[in-house]
């Protein structure tokens, strides 16, 4: 297998599937997007040790095709000015309170936002911040969740988000780990050509991600490592 022929095959397949997608109706597109989202979960390097060239290129194709369905991109990664210590402490306190009612839908725990997070999600500060960053108006979806990665192996494989979180503010709240943790669990965002960017969120830092089109994952935590985040969903206005 030569790299030249593999690259040619990859480009041909990308072109063919792109053409297919153009002619699809909405239901077909939703299924195609789900198929690709599942595929990246299994093909991503973190979930596919001993990956071969076919898998690596298949992953890159799937990641690139995702951008045909929704906007993609890592827009911001910083601690915004509205994230005061007071607000951060209130969010952390609330996340601990609602942890008691968390459900476990996969390899993580999830609790619905409480009053503090809901107020933040609907606040002028957050909405204006996202408006300015994207250059267009957004509307809060009024759905925000606290996510907790607490048991060894907890994480979320590579995926894209559905419409509710197609514009996603991911806010770091806590990251506990002992000295033995050499590679702390990170949020990983893949660029459109499949290159990973590992982001170790500090408390109060925010990632604004066009998560409906950008493939991303939460790396698994190890024994003694615990991560909590808040995720706030918005959509284009």
């Amino acid at each position, binding site marked *: 297998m030569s790299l030249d022929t593999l690259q040619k095959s990859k480009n041909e397949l990308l072109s063919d599937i792109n053409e297919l997608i153009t002619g699809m109706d909405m239901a077909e597109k939703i299924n195609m997007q789900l*198929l690709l989202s599942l595929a990246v979960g299994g093909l991503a390097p973190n979930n596919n040790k001993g990956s071969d060239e076919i898998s690596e290129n298949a992953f890159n194709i799937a990641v690139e095709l995702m951008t045909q369905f929704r906007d993609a991109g890592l827009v911001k990664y910083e601690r915004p000015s509205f994230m005061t210590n007071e607000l951060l402490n209130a969010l952390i306190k609330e996340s601990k309170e609602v942890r008691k009612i968390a459900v476990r839908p996969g390899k993580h725990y999830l609790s619905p936002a409480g009053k503090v997070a809901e107020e933040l999600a609907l606040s002028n500060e957050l909405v204006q911040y996202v408006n300015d960053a994207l250059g267009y108006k957004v509307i809060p979806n009024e759905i925000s969740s606290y996510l907790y990665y607490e048991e060894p192996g907890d994480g979320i494989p590579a995926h894209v988000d559905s419409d509710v979180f197609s514009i996603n503010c991911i806010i770091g709240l806590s990251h506990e780990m002992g000295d033995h943790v050499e590679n702390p669990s990170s949020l990983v965002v893949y660029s459109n050509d499949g290159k990973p960017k590992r982001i170790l969120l500090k408390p109060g830092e925010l990632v604004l991600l066009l998560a409906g089109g950008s493939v991303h994952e939460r790396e698994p935590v190890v024994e003694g490592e615990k991560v909590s985040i808040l995720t706030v969903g918005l959509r284009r206005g």
Partner: protein
Amino acid sequence: MVNLSMIINGSRAKELESGLDKLQAKLKVLSDNSKGEKKELLNRIISTAVKQNQETEANNEGANHLARYYKPMSTHDQLKLKLKFNDLINVVEMPAN
């Protein structure tokens, strides 16, 4: 960009099911018309997706994207569509002879 929320927000198990049938037929044609590494790449994408679907089903996990995809449907429709999704493997499996 397409607005996928048109169907996401409605009750539309049948629409999604028929979309899955049409998608499968189109991918089958593409696979049949492909050869060599191009076919391998397509088949790897499809077979990995099916395997992931089976794993989340077997583990009774609702990976976020799956849970949100199926949420508006009845349990019966969810199960039916999840199982049907596994039929996509027929696109990549070679005939017995």
